[in-house]
């Protein structure tokens, strides 16, 4: 084996690290660690100058391991791995030590201890780096097509965008026609556009030769992996099978039916959705209207804010007021959520029009009786009775029950409310952690129409990154089974959430690398210790533990 030559680049990050950690002494200390042949301090390691310094460092000192002690690997690791690759070094020979987010920024009042901690962390990183192994990434072929589950506005936007770029899109919709929730809407805020206008996209979709639409269909089975998913759907009791390269989940949401809440009867006490239906049929004829917000949301059962109901209530109240300025409308709310200046103006204008907004408290919910609503006014601190001829309840968006089943087929997570969980809220908002599967629209979280449309575009754009190329590179940090130790007990087979572990033709238990995400659950479960997780091997983790105690800090 070649001699291990580690280079450590310690970042000042301007004053972000250097202001709270004695970087010069850290560098001096790092020089004394085993296998370290080169150290350098950089003002900003991620800058052009910093990256060039790494390149030169690798070349001039024949480094075969690179450590950057700087910020978090969660944002910058790909950048530095890329630099290693450029220099002909296997990217898995790169090790990141986080001395900013998890050191300098959180121990700003104790320079000495922050410095000692930085030394410890780098020593642990050096120990691990010495044991790193080169890993190969795999290339797999990609079918240039996409399955879109759900034919609502978000899914349709994604489909039309993909088709217009020349890629095949297959929409699977469970209803008899496309359109989703938008079919039930009347006008859309804030521009008062008719929802039918937006739904004209349906015709475009049906005409587009690149888009195949399956209505009255549901997903029966999904197998395979990124680039090569095998899909089985049920269309009118008939099974249809096809293959796609990527999947977009756009299943949307349902609206909560407020059964048993506030005397809901669908006639005198209705939901916003039912109100819009009355508008559409031109059957609306009420004068005294009370709207109640947060019905069945922001409570113990559903603590989340559905985020669209405030604007929806305002939109409908304004519509009524415009048609009949004599109408009396009061919106009972706990808070009003209007994000952005445009929505805030919309709210103010509603108040100017004479719509009354009044607050109630969660602990004293309004009571709806035969003819009046009694509520405790938070500002006046007294009970008020309002006569009504119509009560409208603003209920939240809730996930479809089928989401759970679908999440199991796709092997993607859902949260406790049944909404799909993206890979990262900010960094990867329309990706799933499972490669090749994406998400948009309200099945992820309550969203309005413009948001659902932009998420549809976002998902389509993420998909094209994959299907515009012939092949895809899969992560190399995966599980590996030592056949000499394996006794084929199959406990790991059942543990793997991605069904990545299987029997091969010789009946051996093996890992299908393209499916493996490297979580490590199989390894910690294997009674024979036959499974190794590459890049997070037992030895590598153990070396970090041991290195910590080797420090000069032990009392």
């Amino acid at each position, binding site marked *: 084996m070649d001699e291990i030559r580690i280079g450590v680049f310690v970042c000042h990050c301007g004053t972000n690290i250097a202001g709270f950690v004695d970087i010069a002494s850290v560098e001096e200390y790092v020089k004394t660690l085993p296998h370290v042949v080169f150290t350098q301090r950089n003002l900003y390691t991620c800058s052009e100058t910093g990256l060039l310094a790494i390149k030169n460092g690798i070349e001039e000192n024949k480094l075969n391991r690179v450590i950057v002690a700087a910020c*978090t*690997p*969660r944002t910058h690791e790909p950048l530095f791995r890329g630099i290693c690759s450029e220099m002909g070094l296997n990217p898995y020979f790169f090790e990141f030590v*986080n001395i*900013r*987010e*998890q*050191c300098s*920024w*959180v*121990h*700003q*009042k*104790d320079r000495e*201890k*922050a410095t000692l*901690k930085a030394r*410890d*962390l780098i020593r*642990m990183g050096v120990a691990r780096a010495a044991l790193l192994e080169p890993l190969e990434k795999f290339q797999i072929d990609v079918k240039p097509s996409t399955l879109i589950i759900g034919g609502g506005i978000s899914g349709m936007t994604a489909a039309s965008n993909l088709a217009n770029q020349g890629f095949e899109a297959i929409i699977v919709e469970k209803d008899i026609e496309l359109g989703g929730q938008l079919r039930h809407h009347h006008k859309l805020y804030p521009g008062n556009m008719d929802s039918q206008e937006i739904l004209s996209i349906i015709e475009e979709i049906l005409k587009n030769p690149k888009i195949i639409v399956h209505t009255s269909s549901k997903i029966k089975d999904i197998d395979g992996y990124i680039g090569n998913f095998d899909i089985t759907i049920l269309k009118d009791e008939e099974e249809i099978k096809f293959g796609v390269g990527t999947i977009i989940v756009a299943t949307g949401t349902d609206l909560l039916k407020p059964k048993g809440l506030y005397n809901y009867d669908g006639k005198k006490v209705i939901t916003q959705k039912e109100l819009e239906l009355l508008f559409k049929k031109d059957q609306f004829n009420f004068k005294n209207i009370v709207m109640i917000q947060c019905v069945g949301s922001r409570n113990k059962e559903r603590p989340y804010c559905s985020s669209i109901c405030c604007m929806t209530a305002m939109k409908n109240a304004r519509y009524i007021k415009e048609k009949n300025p004599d109408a009396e409308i009061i919106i009972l709310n706990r808070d009003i959520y209007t994000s952005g200046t445009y929505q805030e103006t919309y709210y103010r204008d509603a108040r100017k029009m004479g719509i009354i907004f009044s607050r109630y408290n969660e602990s004293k919910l309004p009571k709806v009786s035969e003819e009046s609503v009694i509520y405790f006014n938070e500002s006046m601190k007294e009970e008020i009775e309002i006569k009504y001829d119509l009560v409208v309840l603003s209920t939240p968006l809730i996930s479809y029950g089928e989401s759970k089943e679908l999440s199991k087929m796709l*092997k993607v*997570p*859902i*949260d*406790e409310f049944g909404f799909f*969980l993206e*890979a*990262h*809220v900010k960094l990867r908002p329309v990706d799933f*952690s499972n490669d090749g599967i994406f998400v948009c629209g309200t099945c992820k979280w309550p969203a309005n129409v413009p948001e659902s449309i932009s998420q549809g575009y976002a998902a389509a754009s993420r998909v094209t990154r994959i299907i515009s190329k012939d092949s895809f590179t899969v992560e190399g*940090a995966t599980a590996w089974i030592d056949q000499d130790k394996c006794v084929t*007990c199959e*406990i790991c087979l*059942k*543990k793997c*959430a*991605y069904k990545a572990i299987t029997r091969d033709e010789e009946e051996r238990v093996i890992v299908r690398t393209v499916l493996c995400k*490297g*979580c*490590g*659950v199989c*390894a*910690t*479960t*294997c*009674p*024979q*210790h036959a499974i190794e997780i590459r890049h*997070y091997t*037992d030895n590598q*983790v*153990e070396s*970090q*533990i*041991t290195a*910590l*105690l080797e420090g000069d*800090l*032990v*009392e």
Partner: protein
Amino acid sequence: MDFKPKIIGFLCNWCSYAGADLAGVSRIQYPPNIRIIRLMCSGRVEPYFIFEALKSGIDGVIIMGCHPGECHYMTGNYEAEMKYQLLKSLLTYVDLDNRISLEWVSASEGIRFAEVVTNFTNSIQKLGPSPLKKIDKDSELLFNLNALQIAANDYRLRALIGRKRKILDEGNVYNKKYPKEKFEDLQETAIYDEYQKNRIILYLKKENLSVKDLSERLSIAPNKILEYIVDLRGEGLIDLKDIQELTPYYTAKQEA
């Protein structure tokens, strides 16, 4: 106070490590005692990592993962919890169970991360330095801890934990579902048995002993020791060495 606790945190990459980063971005200050090891999932935490850490004198170990239902790998955190419960049970025998902790911290909970670390650091501070910090190689504590570590690493407990969810949720090979309490009783008994058996092996590796000797050292009734001896011989882990004045003496096989 002179004692500065040394704490290792095993954090999953997706929730708690991100939560720790957020604490940093938000400049929330917390005690500088923790050293974080990043893993992809809390389900990657091998029980023996914790044993190694404790044996080398670490004062406390905290594992953090995504909240139940929010695991990036769907169920990795449930796996972590099962292994943690096993560890907790094992470590009760040596009174070290209060030096480990499992917490759920999401990517958006920077404040919570800092609180969790602060509370854990304080609790370890109160406990004082780990008894394993200054300890000779022949101490009883280290001996028992080694027995526990072998038990945690061995086939029986790992297979039991490995099958736990399936047996509870889907039933065993005869499709018979096990009530949770019953399974947990079984698990506790298995933990106890494995611990004692490994102590026997470790004693027998040092010297040849009789059932009576072992009974005294382990403070367990001779008939129970005999049961273990029969088991261990059946598994081929120990052998009969010789018989002195009608008393059989046993020895452990070195590969055991």
